[in-house]
């Protein structure tokens, strides 16, 4: 009869929490402390004891400050994320065929990746011919842009141009639109890669013009877009480069927010009111396979940006507070070994971004660690998104992990970690000064090295690389065909013919106007870039003029 009494006496002595502690310790003899990539200690269990926030002030409803749960009331339930796959290969004709094919498969927005020669700011007749079109489309003139976008309704299709300072590809697109009679106010899309600081820090690919010139052109570009392209996002602040270069997720978020603050301050210094430019700021992030950490990173970043725009810049328009971001699954996480495993990695990364509340997503192809992705790999990447959306129904519930003790505690801890790094940058005088001093470069280099060493020591498993290896022969996979040299020669010949037949006087006048604007702070350089494109100047000529007038930038390398 007294057995139940004993039981209740026992439970009065030991709480459920204590019992769990004891049983956990007994069954997991040597539980090692674990840390996520940002260095936050991860506990084995999270309970109400781990989150003391207030629903209304710390989480709130989607579409309302503090935006922890998403920037729109309806989020993916109302409108799914944009499926934006990067493509770019070969000649403009090759690109156009691939683009129309991707649109037929469900891609809903255009993205244009130019050849690396274009990124560096050179025309096709200035570079090693072997490299042309191997990693992006060779687009140098308004004719090329017209060919790239043939069959695409520019008034109705959002276009992302991978287009760093001085935004020559956008200029070529505007010239194309004018030729087609499309009103510029209808043009929508984003100047991806407009974040010159991220290029300087982490991905030196596009570093064509010295920092002060790049700084001025960005603000000129923002001002121009504000006046002429109301549906264009002139600023995409890029955390992706920095995380790919080795920054931890918390560091990448912190540096990105600091760059955004820098650009907002530069706009304000130009006399623009915050609510005129902040609604057009967008962000672009890397999504690693560290699932919960990435979700927390995005939720924390969104909350911090909402606060900064309101408190630091005094923005009153809710559109200024919204942290709109594009996510790309991390290529660094992908392996050459057993490459099909990458499909699983990309799926997890994509889920992290979706649960993190992204607005647009690029999923990497499984074969990116082998070479530029094949069409086969790209189709699986697109279908991964289709599966997550339409088979797994990830769009059904808004912020489905909100309220998880773990996610909320981790969101708070990531926020603290991010704010600590931001304080370091602030102490250095803001992101521009910090970058000049090499602070982010140094931190990113150290994080990259330490992550590599964790893989080397086996602390961080990478399946197929340091664990679960199998004997693998050479892959029998067809390498992506390199552009047909014959076609590329014809492309170069047509380019030279184009240069010969355009109005040399108009080209010269436009180049002179561009050079004059570069030396006259009262003029808008980007407006002159657009005029140069309309006058028939090539992309490389525009870059060359600005490189000459504003100085070629040398990166500050910190090893």
């Amino acid at each position, binding site marked *: 009869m007294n057995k139940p009494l004993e039981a209740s006496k026992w439970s009065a002595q030991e709480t459920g929490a204590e019992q769990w502690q004891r049983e956990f310790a007994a069954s997991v003899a040597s539980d090692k402390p674990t840390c996520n990539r940002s260095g936050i200690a991860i506990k084995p269990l999270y309970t109400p004891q781990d989150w003391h926030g207030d629903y209304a002030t710390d989480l709130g409803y989607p579409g309302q400050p503090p935006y922890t749960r998403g920037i729109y009331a309806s989020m993916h339930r109302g409108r799914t994320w944009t499926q934006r796959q990067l493509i770019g290969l070969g000649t403009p004709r090759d690109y156009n065929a691939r683009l129309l094919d991707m649109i037929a498969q469900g891609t809903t927005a255009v993205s244009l990746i130019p050849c690396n020669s274009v990124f560096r700011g050179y025309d096709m007749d200035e570079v*090693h011919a072997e490299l042309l079109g191997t990693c992006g489309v060779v687009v140098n003139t308004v004719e090329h842009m017209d060919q790239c976008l043939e069959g695409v309704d520019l008034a109705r299709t959002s276009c992302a141009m991978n287009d760093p300072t001085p935004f020559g590809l956008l200029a070529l697109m505007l010239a194309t639109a004018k030729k087609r009679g499309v009103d510029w106010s209808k043009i929508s899309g984003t100047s991806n890669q407009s974040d010159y600081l991220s290029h300087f820090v982490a991905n030196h*690919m596009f570093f064509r013009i010295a920092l002060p010139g790049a700084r001025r052109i960005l603000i000129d570009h923002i001002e121009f877009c504000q006046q002429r392209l109301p549906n264009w996002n002139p600023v995409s602040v890029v955390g992706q480069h920095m995380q790919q*270069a080795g920054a931890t997720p918390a560091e990448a978020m912190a540096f990105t927010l600091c760059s955004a603050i820098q650009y907002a301050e530069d706009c304000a210094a130009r006399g623009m009111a915050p609510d005129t430019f902040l609604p057009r700021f967008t962000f672009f992030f890397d999504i690693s396979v560290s699932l919960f950490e990435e979700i927390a990173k995005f939720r924390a970043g969104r909350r911090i940006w909402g606060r900064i725009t309101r408190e630091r810049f005094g923005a009153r328009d809710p559109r200024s507070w919204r942290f709109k971001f594009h996510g790309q699954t991390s290529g660094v996480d992908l392996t050459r070994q057993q490459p099909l495993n990458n499909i699983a990695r990309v799926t997890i990364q994509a889920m992290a971004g979706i649960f993190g509340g992204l607005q647009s997503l690029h999923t990497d192809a499984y074969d990116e660690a082998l070479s530029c992705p094949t069409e086969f790999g790209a189709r699986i990447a697109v279908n991964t998104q289709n599966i997550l959306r339409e088979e797994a129904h990830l769009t059904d519930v808004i912020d489905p992990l909100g309220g998880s003790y773990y996610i909320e505690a981790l969101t708070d801890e990531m926020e603290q970690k991010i704010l600590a790094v931001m304080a370091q940058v602030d102490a250095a005088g803001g992101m521009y000064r910090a970058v000049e001093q090499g602070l982010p470069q140094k931190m990113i*280099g150290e994080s990259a090295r330490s992550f590599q060493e964790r893989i080397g020591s086996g602390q961080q498993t990478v399946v197929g690389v340091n664990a679960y290896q199998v004997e693998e022969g050479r892959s029998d996979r067809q390498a992506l065909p390199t552009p047909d040299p014959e076609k590329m020669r014809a492309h170069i010949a047509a380019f030279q013919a184009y240069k010969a037949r355009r109005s040399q006087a108009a080209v010269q006048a436009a180049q002179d106007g561009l050079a004059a604007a570069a030396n006259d702070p009262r003029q808008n350089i980007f407006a002159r870039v657009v005029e140069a494109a309309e006058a028939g100047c090539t992309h490389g000529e525009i870059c060359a003029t600005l490189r000459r007038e504003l100085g070629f930038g040398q990166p500050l390398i910190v*090893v």
Partner: protein
Amino acid sequence: MTTHPPKVLITKIGFDGHDRGSRVVASFLRDAGMEVVYTPPWQDIPAVVKLAMEEDVDVIGLSSLATDHLIVPKLMQALNAAGLKDIAVIVGGIVPDADESMLLEAGVAKVFHPGSGLDEIAAEVGRLADARRAVSV
């Protein structure tokens, strides 16, 4: 035989600027006691040849993420023409299998693919440097 540490030039030629791989490898080799000459990306081939000669490096390590390995054979020709055939060249990065054979035929000593260990890379650089010194002594 080796009286001073291996000397290696870590660089990138062509148009790509992704330099995480080259920075991590350079800092590891430096901390492993080697003498490392490091350049920013986008070096011209003549500039690499000149630097290799002036610095008298034992090994050139080229990092390639985005197809820049396709112009490595041009670098090999330029090194040969400059009488620097004894400098070993290694390539690390995204190199499709078919292109690896092309690089080895062009005289590249070794191609490291993603997932290669830093220790493994350091050991190979050390071995290649020793081999060069053994011949030149």
